[in-house]
């Protein structure tokens, strides 16, 4: 069970949160100009590192706000971003 620090509510247990996958994936700026390959990459391909990962979490059973978290995918050590 991980202890995750919500930027607004402080440290809470993992089951209060919802996972959102890789952080910083922006919607394409010019969607009409994207090739099939680029759409495929945007829709389906995300980083899957062993180690440091920047990801989205939502404090769904608390303040219900989304935030970014830096987490190690081997040790589960977490830290804030920036």
């Amino acid at each position, binding site marked *: 069970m991980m202890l995750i620090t919500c930027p607004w509510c402080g440290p809470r247990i993992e089951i209060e949160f*919802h996972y959102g996958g890789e952080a910083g994936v922006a919607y394409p700026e010019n969607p009409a100009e994207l090739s099939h390959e680029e759409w495929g990459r945007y829709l*389906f391909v995300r980083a899957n590192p*062993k180690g440091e990962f920047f*990801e989205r979490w939502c404090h769904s059973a608390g303040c219900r706000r989304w935030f970014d978290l830096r987490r190690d*995918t081997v040790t*589960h050590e977490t830290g804030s971003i920036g």
Partner: protein
Amino acid sequence: MLNTLAEPSRPDRLWRSVEPRRRYQVVIVGGGGHGLATAYYLARNHGITDVALLERGWLAGGNMARNTTIIRSNYLWEASAGIYEHSLKLWEGLEETLGYPILFSQRGVLNLAHSPQEVRDSMRRVQANRLAGVDAQWLEPADVAEVCPIVNVSPQVRYPVLGATFQPRAGIAKHDYVAWGFARAASDLGVDIVENCEVTGFDVRAGRVTGVRTTRGDIAAETVALSAAGHTSVLADMVGLRLPLQSHPLQALVSELLQPVHPTVVMSNAVHVYVSQAHKGELVMGAGIDAYNSYSQRGAIHIIERQLAAAVELFPVFARAHVLRTWAGIVDVSPDASPIVGLTGIDGLLVNCGWGTGGFKATPGVGWCYAHTIANGEPHPLNAPFTLDRFTSGALIDEHGAAAVAH
């Protein structure tokens, strides 16, 4: 006194332990069930024996040692029925093929439906299975109790059993024996099995993969075939290949040894539990995946708690059983819950990945097809639909319903 006692004689090794040579025709990365089956069929079906199977730890010590050994082929789409049913047919003759006992037991699998929508989806899957030549039946709750008397089919529970699909030819096997059987047979045919040999990089020349760098030296190869399950992304990153995979822990557990109480395999997607009783007597249970990406090979206790709450409601007789141990394997989940087996767009490099929570059942089938792909440089008809390209073309093989987490 002790010195006068002779040491007990060691049993013969099942496969040769070798120092890797510097060059092979084919290098397979990953010494799990899929890699072993691939090596075996490369040698047996295609006569290619200049093969090294590289394993970073010990043979079959990853997901092959951690799965719940369920074997079935009742998926929804024709493409899936093709490869999973081919695999099931190979399982049916595998003891004879390998000349090694694997305790393959066709005790049937029940996939429970707990809601009217699940009932409709399950009936649809039964019909699709029959059209694809896969044995499948729809059972009403009373028939479910007939097949597996310890399932609670009372309408009073939180998730009542409204019926189930039943595949009588499904079953379980002894995972270690499967690995050892393939390893012995592949080794006898000339394949080099190299343990404690981690791939740390690739040699790429003019856009072509020409070999691997390992903790036991560089090894050149005409073809490098990845078969590394949850660690596939780590390897692919080394050559700049981005794959649509996310790695998650998948947990399982066993009880202490019990008298035979559970005659079949029961799976429930809705409550995320699947359970059978191993030959030795343990109840073997799988849970859902942990939601976040992780390579830690351990999961959170609340997943186990939820799984056991569901299990005890479905099987009241389990309430007095004790958990002996829990563990997790790292599974590589693809966006459509179907595998990726074939070419990568990089010459000399092939992938077999994305089996997510359900790779064990496919072991002989994917070994057969992946070996064909390696030998011919193009996919076997049964793995041709499972391309990497489908995430560009949109020809997805959506098996979330038949796989869910409970593959």
